């Protein structure tokens, strides 16, 4: 009980102390994109996910208190060609039947100065979880907030593309993920 009281008190204090008190927490799917760049025989191939949901709460005045979660529907992939889209469904790649979604859950957000921040958290793909971190920028976009960031993951850390595809000289191990998340503020606290 003591701890609960402490937390409540801390929250109340934090809420009172926050000056800007604008929390962006309404994910705008239509304005957001989640794309990636893979490399095939040394050639960059652009891809993206069409369906994903971000659950977030970000107050620029209190970035360290921010949270973010991302759930994506792996079947909504556009891997660059029909051949590739059909291929990644299968067991060696995402094994969609067993693992239809991937998720990211933030553990910490750290200001890097100016409009730059660093996001750390756990990324789960194909039942395997890895710690990742990604720098991102926060930008006011009208009344909304736009968060842009990128990081590189190693697909084999998640067992994505195993078997014959684990030959990284054909499809590179590194995949760059780029996110552009737009969120609207909701009822600013005073």
């Amino acid at each position: 009980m003591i701890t609960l009281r402490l937390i409540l008190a801390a929250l109340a204090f934090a809420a009172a102390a926050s000056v800007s008190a604008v929390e962006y927490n309404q994910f705008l799917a239509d304005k957001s994109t989640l794309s990636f760049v893979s490399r095939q025989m040394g050639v960059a191939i652009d891809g993206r996910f069409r369906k994903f949901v971000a659950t977030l709460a970000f107050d620029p005045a209190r970035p360290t208190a921010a949270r973010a979660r991302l759930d994506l529907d792996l079947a909504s992939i556009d891997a660059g060609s029909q051949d590739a889209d059909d291929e990644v469904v299968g067991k060696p790649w995402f094994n969609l039947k067993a693992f239809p979604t991937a998720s990211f859950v933030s553990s910490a957000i750290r200001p890097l100065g100016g409009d730059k921040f660093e996001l750390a958290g756990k990324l789960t793909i194909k039942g395997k979880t890895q710690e990742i971190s990604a720098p991102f920028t926060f930008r006011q976009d009208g009344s909304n907030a736009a968060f842009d960031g990128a990081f590189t993951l190693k697909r084999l850390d998640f067992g994505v593309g195993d078997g014959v595809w684990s030959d990284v000289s054909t499809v590179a191990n590194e995949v760059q993920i780029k996110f552009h998340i737009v969120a609207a503020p909701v009822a600013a606290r005073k």
Partner: protein
Amino acid sequence: MPDTRYTLTAIVLHWLMALLLVGLFTVGLYMSDLPLSPQKLKIYSWHKWAGVTAFTLVLIRLTWRIGHRPPALPAMPGWQKAAAHGMHHLLYLLMIIIPLSGWLMSSAKGFQTVYFGVLPLPDLVHKNKELGDLLKTVHASLNYGLAALVVAHFGAALKHHLLDRDDVLSRMLPFLAGSR
């Protein structure tokens, strides 16, 4: 005495390209029906690199050709001369537009061509599925056209050699120089 033979450069380019084109054609047919695999991606890349090589070679060959007229044809009916010239023009045209169509197709399909993984060729068209599918048909059809012409070209050369017994074939051969 006027030259009765092609220059060694022309002969080397002719046979090098013949080998390369037959190889490209065979590999092209084989690879497009393969199920997706790392092997397929590798073969596609090699096909593209070899195709760009063929394109470079044909440009060199044309430059050489402009500076070095081939020896005059032996006596034959006018229509045969016209057919031979028409055929050679068509062959050059196809040797240029086939690799071009492959390059454009790759761009339209969203796979840039990076020569031997080092030298990126610019994407002259944007990614566009319909255009990519269309260019694939164009690339394939032009190739069937080229194959038909090559068969006729080869047949004509043999006819000259075996029936007319003139030097039309031997003057393009690196050996048999003085045989006829």
